[in-house]
């Protein structure tokens, strides 16, 4: 008998300030999957993550299988980087709040290869990539088995972006995590996801990257000019391995 899905979403509808953001969305995610959530701006990707985290009110049902522990890396932290906080303060705050042992902090830092001197660096002085690593370490505290990422590399340069994605892939391989990731970068989606959920004004669709990341579907979802996806299309053509 196949495993029950880790996450079942049925008829999810979310309205914010009387504006309908998500309507009648249903999908399932299996344990160990990497689900990429794509779609044009304003299609409700971040809202979906927040609903899944239980941060905003919604209609319909969201069911996480028992024993699920969520870790979350938000899109942008509007944090005041002038605050007198070092990375360790932040990790310690979560560890203490969840009554985790101190060793959990060092373990989380180790998992994302955050060097010890960076733990004692102010959050205002570290680079964007290091800050993102610190946030991933924060998400890993409490031993989650599902990670939700909202555009984890939005403000990073290419090198830093690459490192963050390598880290995610490594974490998933090592710990068998289930990952839900919102991303704008379709080549990354193609590379790391095995399921894609495309939110758009029309009907949302879900499936393996090869089925969803087709020029026709993308044009329909994004209403974008042909040459924008041509690059991706060529990439897909040149990649002989199919991803399911």
């Amino acid at each position: 008998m196949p495993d029950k899905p880790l996450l079942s979403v049925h008829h999810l509808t979310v309205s914010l300030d009387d504006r309908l953001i998500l309507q009648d969305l249903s999908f399932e995610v299996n344990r160990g999957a990497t689900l990429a959530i794509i779609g044009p701006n304003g299609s409700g990707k971040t809202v979906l993550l927040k609903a899944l985290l239980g941060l905003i009110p919604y209609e319909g049902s969201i069911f996480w299988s028992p024993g699920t522990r969520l870790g979350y890396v938000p899109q942008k932290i509007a944090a005041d980087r002038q605050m007198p906080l070092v990375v360790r303060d932040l990790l310690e705050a979560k560890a203490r709040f969840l009554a985790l042992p101190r060793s959990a902090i060092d373990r989380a830092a180790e998992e994302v290869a955050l060097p010890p001197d960076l733990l004692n660096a102010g959050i205002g002085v570290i680079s964007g990539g290091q800050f993102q690593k610190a946030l991933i370490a924060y998400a890993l505290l409490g031993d989650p088995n599902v990670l939700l990422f909202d555009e984890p590399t939005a403000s990073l340069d290419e090198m830093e972006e690459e490192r963050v994605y390598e880290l995610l892939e490594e974490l998933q391989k090592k710990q068998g995590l289930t990952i839900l990731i919102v991303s704008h970068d379709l080549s990354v989606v193609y590379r790391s996801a095995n399921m894609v959920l495309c939110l758009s004004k029309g009907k949302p669709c879900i499936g393996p990257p090869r089925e969803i990341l087709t020029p026709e579907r993308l044009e329909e979802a994004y209403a974008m000019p042909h040459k924008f996806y041509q690059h991706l299309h060529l990439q897909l053509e040149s990649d002989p391995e199919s991803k399911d």
Partner: protein
Amino acid sequence: MIHPDLIYSVTLALMFAVAAGLVGSFALMKRMLLAGDVISHLALPGLGLAFLMGWNPLLGGACSLFAGTILIAELQKKSGLSADAMIGVVFAGALAVGAALTPQEDLVDALFGKFQQLSFPTFTAGMVAVATIIAFIFYFREQLVLSLFSSELAAATGVKLDRLNLWFLLVFSLTVLVGLRFMGALLAGSLIMVPSTIGRRLSRNLSGFLLTSVLASVTAVAMGFVLSLYVLRRMSLGPSTTIIAAVLFGLSLLCKPRGARR
């Protein structure tokens, strides 16, 4: 030597300094120092009325503080103007009404605080309030840090933000109330504001920040006592403490800031 009758006052004032340093540190991170300070001015009409009618000044202060806070929230809803605009209006109004209500001979005391002997019950009530404030900060320290860093991340971690913010506001008001007696309605917020700026300049992590703020606050009160008791006897405790705190801040400028941006 401090007169034995003043032991209660001195002890409570020093403990208040600890509480104000802690609360101020979080108020600074919340960027609500100035808005928070205005809360203390809202106590003035109540203080004035209490002086006029012979009630307990703290009770009067507490009532008008509470009423003023609600008034700001209501006016904001009704007028559609921003919170800081309404705080400005209510603050100016409260100061004027307070000044008009307070008997002339009590006005300076109400505005700038009075150094006085405390009865044992008043001392005990004050100590309970201060202990509550300090315990709150220590118990909720992690949740406060998370909520200040990112409210969204805090909520995802399980912090109940609405409740936390409300409690922080209540603790902030309680701190102001305890300070009213020593520091007066105009300066009760100064020990919440100034020491935390010193702590911020001289520290780069949270523990250092809290510790430095508390030390600066306690030093300001201790030296303020000496100043108003032995040096400038006509000066109230509010101004003397605030002057010391401001001087300490000035001195902190001589040190290189730590933990600020590159």
